[in-house]
């Protein structure tokens, strides 16, 4: 099994505990910002030394918990810092962007990284629709067209035009093209069965984050079914699962750390002094899940489908991951160690990564990969 490291690159300034989303730019301390970026790079180096198979970033906006609203920039710097590491951006909030520009970013980045790139395309979490003002009700349709357009940008050898339902470009000519031909491996998020089905149909990798095993199982089944209909068979290596993970010397020590630090969620990244904002985010979430426009959903009835983080001493966590892997049929586990702002310190993260490198990572590498 492959083991990947996801790093949100937490901001380490004194506003880390401020409960108000979106955060005010005036609170940003540039000295601490520089330090946060450096610590993020050091954590990636530690993960690379620990034997992780890929160093992963994601796009999130207006957040003290993530310093990577433009992860491709960070990835370019990371590629210089760790010249032999695989790098993945999982992923881009595609409906927020011009798909042609996204294809250009990744083509360029793959050249900068000398072909070490994987990337993900996803619809993004509800808060992201508030940041740039994106219609959430048409998100799925726009997303699916945009994915097809991005892939088409990589695969059309001559300049072409796209007369889409949501996108119109009369001239597209991707130059530079990516190093990996026709394009780097693409992961599509599959947190719902319908998203997973689309990933299968598109012959892309499947990425699932933080969901419970039951929810993941439904997605994986839908993915395999759609892939079969499209005439191909995914292996475990096509399936990635992201979950929080913290390993300490012993179960007791790990439990103590996460309880003391309120890891991984901290004070809640989207808490706001504006009492009306959570309802907006909730309605956007419902829209993304398919609720029609004009319907105010009862969020208290929404299912909570989050899985438990992997926490404990090395042996315990190894058992937890193996149980998940077996249940899900995954070949790639992506571990999010850092948690939200104000939880684990840089030293905690690096120590945990080192410990994983001595125990977890070699053990998982040695595991036979489940055959799909």
């Amino acid at each position, binding site marked *: 099994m492959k083991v990947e490291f996801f790093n949100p690159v937490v901001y380490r300034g004194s506003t880390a505990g401020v409960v108000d989303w979106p955060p005010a730019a*005036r609170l940003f301390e540039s000295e601490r910002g520089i330090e946060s970026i450096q610590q993020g790079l050091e954590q990636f180096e530690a993960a690379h030394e620990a034997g992780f198979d890929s160093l992963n970033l994601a796009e999130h906006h207006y957040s003290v918990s993530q310093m990577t609203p433009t992860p491709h920039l960070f990835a370019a710097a990371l590629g210089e810092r760790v010249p032999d590491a695989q790098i993945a951006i999982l992923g881009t909030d595609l409906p927020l962007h011009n798909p042609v520009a996204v294809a250009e970013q990744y083509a360029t980045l793959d050249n900068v990284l000398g072909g070490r790139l994987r990337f993900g395309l996803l619809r993004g979490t509800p808060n992201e629709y508030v940041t740039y*003002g*994106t*219609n959430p009700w*048409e998100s799925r349709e726009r997303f699916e067209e945009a994915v097809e357009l991005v892939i088409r940008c990589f695969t059309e050898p001559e300049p072409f035009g796209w007369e*889409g339902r949501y996108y119109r470009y009369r001239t597209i000519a991707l130059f530079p093209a990516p190093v990996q031909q026709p394009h780097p491996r693409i992961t599509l998020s599959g947190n719902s069965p319908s998203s997973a089905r689309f990933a299968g149909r598109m012959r892309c990798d499947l990425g699932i984050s933080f969901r419970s095993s039951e929810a993941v199982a439904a997605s994986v089944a839908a993915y395999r079914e759609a892939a079969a209909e499209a005439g191909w068979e995914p292996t475990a290596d096509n399936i990635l699962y992201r979950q929080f993970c913290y390993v300490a010397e012993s179960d007791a020590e790990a439990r103590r750390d996460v309880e003391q630090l309120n890891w991984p969620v901290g004070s809640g990244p989207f808490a706001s002094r504006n009492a009306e904002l959570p*309802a*907006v985010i909730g*309605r*956007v979430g419902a829209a993304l899940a398919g609720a029609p426009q004009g319907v105010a959903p009862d969020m208290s009835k929404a299912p909570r489908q989050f899985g438990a983080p992997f926490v404990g001493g090395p042996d315990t966590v190894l058992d937890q991951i193996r149980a998940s892997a077996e249940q899900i049929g995954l070949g790639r586990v992506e571990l999010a160690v850092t948690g939200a702002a104000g939880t684990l310190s840089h030293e905690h993260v690096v120590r945990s990564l080192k410990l994983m490198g001595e125990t977890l990572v070699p053990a998982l590498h040695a595991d036979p990969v489940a055959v799909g």
Partner: protein
Amino acid sequence: MTTIEQAPGAGFVEGRVEIDGFTVRYHQAGPPASIGEPAGDPLVVLHGAGGLHFSIALDLLARTRRVVLVEMPGFGEQVNEVHRSSDELAEAIAQVVEAIGLERYHLLGHSLGGTIALHLAFAHPDRLASLVLDGPAGFREGESAPAATSPQEVVRRFRAQPERAPAFSPPDPALMARVMPLAQRLMISRPAFDQELADRLPQCAVRTLVLFGDRDGVVPPQNGRTYRRLMPNCSFQLVHRAAHSVQDDRPEAYAELVSDFLERGWMFLVPEQSTLINP
């Protein structure tokens, strides 16, 4: 939205109520009866120190909602020597609106009217569906001295697109002379950063939209940040290529922003218009 051909305010009908010894004029308009009942709560509008001002923006807002412009006591024929503070004038306005028969309403105030609207929100938060502060004068840090300004400079302070109709017309000097002592009491005598006002903002939970023209030459737009920083339920929006008279510089944009906020509240952060080009 398209602009309206007739003169701004042509569709408004005048009414009067008596409050605190003043005969207060108000002007109201709404969607034609053929369209049916107006949607949502009515919008009460308070003008700036220059007095009652009709605009294309307010005409556009009145297409879908009852809009009531209130001429504040002291801005008509009678001099206002009664109201000593923004709190007192705001209370009088609250009584005016009550006398007009409105129990719950959106309140929009421009410039000095923004300050009065804010004070009304402090006193009667339960009556307001939401509050819109358009270039409010509650904080005036960085304002330029009014003296020694050329006519061109005056236009620049109010209008970023003076070529757009209606043309800018300076306030009536006779009215300004009548109003000046009142404006002095309520606004000009207050410090540019009014700490007493700032101290009251965190307690005001009324849903509030603060909008400024990005080229406002009367109240510098950076004053909008103070409301955003201190009010818990506040959005701060900059309207591009507009000066102090946003209603005249960008009427269509103004009406769209305000009506989106009034109709949809915080859902206005998320567009609901489809971007489908062709099915």
